[in-house]
């Protein structure tokens, strides 16, 4: 680690001065090795006690898709406006769950690590960032699974698939923010972790994950505006556009792209600033 040992003998410094923004970010960057190592090992240990072990990283998304497909595709038949409901659902659900998991993990990241916070000094933002990176790495197997399902389901690769990783990177930026906001909220109000699943359930139905919203927003600018202001809808719509591209008759609405980018950058920047503003209280307990 650069600096610490060398600046040692120089002068007395306040043990409680809070690092300013740039040094703080530099500290976070210096711990990137820790973030990666924890993320990769977290995934390694997550399924360690299960019989099927890490196979669950593949099985879990498959079973999730299976359950939703049976209920919404076969039983409830909410498939109008979608050419291939299974593929439509797969893309929407996997993208949605990435944000859901990163945020819920982030919410627990501070309160479940109190002994670490009491014992080791490091920028606290490391914890929600690690939660997001862990879910990012976990999502890679899920997205790999998604492309397998797409190819088996009869989609042929198209150039816009290359844009899909860009959407996921944008989404990761968005998730960093939601994860940090959720982490701080949980320190004020423990029940956040109980409430979040319901917030996401609501978002799931309100973001066009399991049905196409096209039929609802036609001739209804109010509803269309609401959807455009919903970051999950924007991210999912962008992801679907890169996958199905011209299959959907209408080209992607530029407002959706702008809203998605504004939400993501805004979430990361404001989420980080809001999280850091309470840096001192995380070690207190």
């Amino acid at each position, binding site marked *: *680690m650069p600096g*610490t040992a060398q600046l*040692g003998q*120089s002068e007395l410094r306040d*043990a409680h001065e809070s690092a300013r923004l740039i040094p703080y970010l530099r500290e976070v960057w210096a*711990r990137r090795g820790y973030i990666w190592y*924890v993320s990769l090992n977290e995934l390694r240990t997550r399924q360690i006690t299960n019989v099927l072990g890490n196979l669950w990283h593949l099985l879990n998304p498959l079973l999730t898709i299976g359950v939703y497909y049976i209920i919404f595709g076969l039983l409830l038949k909410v498939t109008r406006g979608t050419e291939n409901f299974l593929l439509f659902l797969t893309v929407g659900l996997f993208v949605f769950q990435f944000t859901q998991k990163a945020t819920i993990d982030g919410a627990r990241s501070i309160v479940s690590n109190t002994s670490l916070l009491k014992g080791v000094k490091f920028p606290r933002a490391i914890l929600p960032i690690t939660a997001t990176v862990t879910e990012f790495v976990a999502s890679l197997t899920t997205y790999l699974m998604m492309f397998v399902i797409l190819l088996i389901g009869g989609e042929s690769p198209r150039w816009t698939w290359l844009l899909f990783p860009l959407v996921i990177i944008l989404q990761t930026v968005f998730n960093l923010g939601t994860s940090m906001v959720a982490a701080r909220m949980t320190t004020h109000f423990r029940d956040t972790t109980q409430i979040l699943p319901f917030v996401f359930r609501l978002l799931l139905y309100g973001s066009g994950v399991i049905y196409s919203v096209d039929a609802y927003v036609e001739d209804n600018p109010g509803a269309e505006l609401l959807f455009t202001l919903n970051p999950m809808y924007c991210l999912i719509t962008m992801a679907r556009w890169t996958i199905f591209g011209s299959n959907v008759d209408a080209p992607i609405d530029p407002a959706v792209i702008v809203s998605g980018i504004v939400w993501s950058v805004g979430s990361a920047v404001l989420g980080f600033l809001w999280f850091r503003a309470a840096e001192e209280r995380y070690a207190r307990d």
Partner: protein
Amino acid sequence: MPVTELSAPTGAPEIAPAPISVAIDSVDVKYRVFEERYFSMRDLVSGGFKMRRSTDIHAVQNLSLDITTGEAVGIVGSNGSGKSSLLRAIAGLQSIQSGSIKVRGQAQLLGVNAALKPLLSGYRNIMLGGLAMGLDREEIEAEMDNIVEFSGLGNAMNRPMNTYSSGMAARLAFSIATIRVPDILLIDEALAVGDKDFREKSLQRISDIRAQAGTVIMVTHSLGEIRASCTRAVWLEKGVLRADGAVDDVLNSYEE
């Protein structure tokens, strides 16, 4: 409460021959404990705002202390006397309500065991603990053999940490925490575990750290440990400094 000045007077503003490495100036540490710790929905439903019932704990009261580089200070005091709070405040892990704490270089609490994960092997935990302390991978890999040897865990390094006895886990944590010699090493009861051999080894390591012009501050109930490795003792009682000076003098009056 009057401070019994036994030998070395503290808080003297004159510049000491050895540079001061920790300057604690009229520090107060207070925290609030909630009896019903976290405000939750249940409190709303049951109608009782239990979160309001809280107690302020004045863990450290108006404490001033200067510690010079190369000293090994043992802090004694009964349970709840504010020893650990003071240590964590020096490490910057506990916020202080008034006064100031200045440190020269990096103060590091021997608290790395909190970063370790029970399901990972000893090797992976060395990496994890080192990274948490802010070392980079190459540094840790370069030190890996030394750490394994010092911990004396041998083949157990390949096993997950949840198969370790508490003594083995403590040995691993100590070995990781002392990879890098910090400018100021803070130890909170960390040596009270481990077998006799390892205890001797860790006492040796602590005097090595001190020899490298570092400062050691330790909190322990083992007066023997303080006698064996400290050059100065501080006695805290209910957050107030009771005595400060040569080890034997302070410990003798503490034992009375």
